[in-house]
């Protein structure tokens, strides 16, 4: 009786099988002991031989039906599931001998059930050629053991017939002394046999019919082929032959001990020396894993060294600032976090880098820091409880670096998560979880929103929070990498070139480390110790103080702005990919899109804008909203937990598919620029473009909105004009289109420099300075 992992022993389910076994063995033994001797003498010695053989046959088939694997399909690996994402329908049709057969997605086993396969809720397995779950043998009856079950029924029927018949002969010949022990016992045995005679014979007859018709009990009971043609039938004789004479199918489920133990499993921790030379291994661009694979090739050599050396404690972690103020469940640090990673390694299968986000696959966990790449954090952290949700805040930032990969890459990176609620698409759920975590922490919801709703274009900072870019890929997260994520490539904001890491580092880093060159904290390589309780990592996104987060956000904003400046040099409307980036996601993740338009708005807005964001994006953009709602509905259907019909699925797919196209029509300013769905665009552009897009849909001119915010400068880029933007003087022109409209580059703004004059400040800076007066100076 193959049992799926995680099921507890339930004594109650063994009662029927124990009863059946007891009755069978007990009654037959009594029959052989009390009835057969007289029958041997009076009738023939062949009687007990015949009965004996039949009884052995019954026992053998009973045992095979009970203990044989019915044809359990092993759970699908995560990598296999990547092809089926949120958009995938609940059912797939296949053509079997000209007849359409529906294959249903199994949310537990993560594959489309082959024809005739069904998921047994008792055994919690998908079984090939599922017949039924028989409580009398406490096992599923499927492809491999149906023959033995059928033969068991046949032989049991024959045995019962024999027992009753020979018992009757005995009783009739001992009618004068019915009180005698032997006679009484024989009569009792006959009663038991007679009691089960009708059900067993009935069941046997039923299965004889099924076998001749080539159907399973499941198909018969659910009426699959009622009035129709059974595509699986081979004709009466062929069906009987198939049941009785086909070769025994192999077992698919391989027990874990059978996996080669000769190979040593090493935990995915990096050695400290690797981290020391890990400058090139710092925060990698988050991506969908494919690029990580490519990009990591150079670091692979260093990672390979991991397994050669013993683990040991590394240099101390960066300071855990204000850890107490966040995450109440945060505990000490690094060994715990690494330990959690270790225990993840132990408890869950290694998660490929590409599929970090696979939720509900591994039971483990929860540390946001992973070792070299694939192990753990992202997906595991999703399946966690509240205490680990904090870790989601930054591990779960998806990378929207679409341009380099097609939708397939996206699917790889963000495989669907059927266990998530229908309304949350994958990264949307991550975001919502992170937002919830923020809320749970007591309400910095609004304040943290800008930090979280990175739904728009990714920035170098984004890579911090993407799991792939997670701490160097080596599991370390330094403040330096947080502040300067773009890293090796150097995404330093050109407008503020002199704002070096050092200027941000000093207040936040450990005093001892202030002057050091960026050295990623070796969080990931905690010692591989014995079973220690997993503890959340000390330095996590939610863990950082607000000032740090503010500075990070500010820096991100600044860099984003700089990128805008650069991008505008190309063309005002050059890149029509506003909805390209979000669209390819949104098809999978509704809430991404729902946050998408809002995200960039939030990003570029002041705090007021943040508050008004949802309203802004929603109420003012009915067209957007309709598409959003259609997307949400389609995506809510998509995770295959619903049982919507295929037609509904197709309709939704159509709706989804047409969405990007319709998006481009909505904007008057963009009519000349259809945005080809799925066209990869630089994510750095999609933010401003998303902003532009939204703005063009506004019924009223945006400057009025801006005016509500007290003369905050607005981005004139997206006001739907192709000509040179006419910008009222006094507005900060850093977002404006033409180079000549831009203000001359000034000295980079640093906290020490104080706030720039308000009139000339862009909305971004204004927001930053208003939000974080401590940073902006007096």
């Amino acid at each position: 009786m193959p049992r799926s992992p995680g099921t507890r022993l339930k004594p109650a389910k063994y009662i029927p099988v124990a009863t059946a076994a007891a009755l069978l063995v007990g009654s037959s033994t009594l029959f052989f002991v009390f009835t057969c001797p007289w029958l041997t003498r009076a009738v023939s010695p062949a009687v007990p031989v015949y009965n004996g053989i039949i009884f052995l046959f019954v026992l053998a088939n009973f045992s095979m039906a009970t203990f044989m694997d019915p044809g359990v399909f092993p759970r699908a690996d995560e990598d296999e599931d990547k092809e089926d994402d949120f958009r995938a329908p609940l059912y797939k049709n296949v053509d079997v001998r000209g007849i359409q057969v529906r294959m249903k997605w199994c949310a537990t086993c993560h594959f489309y059930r082959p024809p005739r396969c069904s998921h047994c809720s008792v055994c919690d397995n998908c079984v090939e050629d599922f017949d039924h779950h028989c409580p009398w043998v406490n096992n599923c009856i499927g492809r491999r053991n149906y023959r033995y079950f059928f033969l068991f029924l046949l032989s049991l029927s024959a045995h019962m017939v024999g027992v009753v018949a020979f018992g009757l002969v005995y009783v009739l010949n001992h009618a004068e002394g019915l009180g005698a022990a032997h006679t009484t016992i024989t009569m009792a045995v006959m009663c038991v046999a007679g009691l089960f005679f009708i059900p067993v014979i009935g069941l046997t007859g039923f299965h004889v019919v099924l076998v001749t018709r080539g159907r399973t009990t499941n198909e018969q009971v659910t009426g699959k082929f009622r009035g129709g043609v059974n595509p699986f039938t081979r004709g009466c004789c062929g069906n009987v032959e198939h049941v009785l004479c086909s070769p025994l199918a192999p077992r698919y489920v391989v027990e874990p001990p059978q996996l080669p133990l000769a190979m040593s499993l090493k935990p995915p921790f990096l050695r400290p020396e690797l981290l020391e030379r890990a400058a090139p291994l710092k925060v990698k661009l988050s991506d969908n894993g494919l690029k990580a694979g490519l990009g990591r090739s150079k670091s692979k050599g260093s990672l390979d060294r991991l397994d050669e050396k013993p683990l040991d404690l590394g240099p101390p972690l960066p300071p855990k600032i204000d850890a107490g103020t966040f995450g109440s469940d945060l505990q000490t640090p690094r060994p715990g976090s690494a330990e959690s990673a270790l225990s993840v390694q132990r408890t869950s299968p290694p998660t490929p880098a590409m599929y970090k986000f696979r939720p509900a696959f591994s039971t483990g966990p929860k540390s946001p820091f992973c070792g070299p790449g694939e192990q753990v954090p992202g997906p595991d952290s999703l399946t966690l409880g509240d205490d680990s949700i904090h870790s989601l805040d930054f591990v779960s930032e998806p990378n929207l670096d679409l341009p380099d990969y097609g939708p397939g890459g996206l699917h790889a990176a963000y495989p669907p998560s059927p266990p998530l609620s229908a309304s949350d698409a994958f990264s949307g759920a991550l975001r919502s979880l992170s937002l919830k975590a923020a809320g749970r922490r007591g309400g910095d919801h609004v304040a943290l929103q800008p930090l979280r709703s990175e739904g728009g274009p990714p920035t170098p900072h984004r890579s911090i929070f993407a799991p792939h870019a997670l701490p160097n890929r080596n599991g370390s997260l330094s403040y330096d990498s947080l502040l300067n994520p773009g890293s090796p490539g150097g995404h330093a904001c050109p407008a503020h070139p002199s704002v070096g890491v050092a200027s941000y580092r000093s207040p936040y880093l450990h005093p001892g480390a202030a002057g050091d060159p960026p050295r990623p904290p070796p969080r990931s390589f905690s010692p591989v110790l014995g079973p220690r309780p997993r503890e959340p990592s000390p330095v996590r996104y939610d863990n950082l103080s607000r000032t740090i987060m503010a500075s990070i956000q500010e820096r991100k904003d600044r860099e984003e702005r700089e990128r805008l400046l650069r991008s505008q040099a190309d063309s005002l409307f050059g890149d029509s990919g506003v909805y390209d980036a979000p669209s390819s996601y949104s098809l999978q993740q509704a809430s991404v899109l729902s946050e998408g338009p809002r995200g960039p708005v939030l990003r570029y807005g002041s705090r007021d804008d943040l508050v008004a964001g949802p309203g802004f994006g929603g109420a003012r953009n009915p067209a957007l909203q309709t598409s959003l709602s259609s997307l949400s509905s389609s995506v809510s259907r998509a995770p295959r937990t619903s049982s919507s019909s295929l037609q509904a699925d197709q309709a939704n797919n159509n709706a989804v598919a047409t969405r990007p196209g319709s998006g481009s029509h909505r904007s008057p300013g963009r009519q000349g620029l259809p945005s080809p769905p799925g066209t990869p665009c630089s994510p750095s552009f999609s933010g401003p473009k998303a902003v532009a897009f939204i703005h063009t849909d506004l019924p009223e001119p945006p400057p009025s909105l801006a005016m509500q915010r007290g003369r905050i400068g607005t981005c004139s880029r997206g006001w739907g004009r192709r000509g040179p933007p006419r910008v009222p003087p006094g507005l900060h022109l850093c977002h404006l289109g033409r180079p000549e409209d831009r203000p001359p580059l000034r000295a980079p703004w640093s906290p020490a420099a104080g706030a720039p004059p308000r009139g000339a400040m862009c909305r971004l800076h204004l927001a930053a300075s208003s939000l974080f007066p401590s940073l902006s100076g007096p």
Partner: protein
Amino acid sequence: MFTLHELRRSASLATKVFIQRDYSDGTICQFQTKFPPELDSRIERQLFEETVKTLNGFYAEAEKIGGSSYLEGCLACATAYFIFLCMETHYEKVLKKISRYIQEQNEKIFAPRGLLLTDPVERGMRVVSFWAVLCEGTGLTTSGVPGEAARKWGLP
């Protein structure tokens, strides 16, 4: 010398192409011979089809109801199925043949192209997967024996 962990990690970086089962003839085990576009640049179409067809042939042989299967069934009945403890079933024999074939194909044909064919039995015969390795020469082949590497790779 590389560890299982490393193999899995490295293998996990590969693009995986899955070839689904072909149910057009019922539940007999056969795989679709449709050429997946992802392998377009990696392998010749004809080579791919030949491989899949050979696999299909093996599985057809394994599931064939004929003399050997009758004999096996009768023997099993006669011995109250104790024969299964001693003897390998016909299907299992063919499966061994299949895995030898797959290993051979991996060594000779697929590994030089940066591909790895996995044994479908690992996934319940639902799919055959090709793993297209992205980064070659990253230490995976340090064993020096492609066959051994392929065999080690043939892990789910």
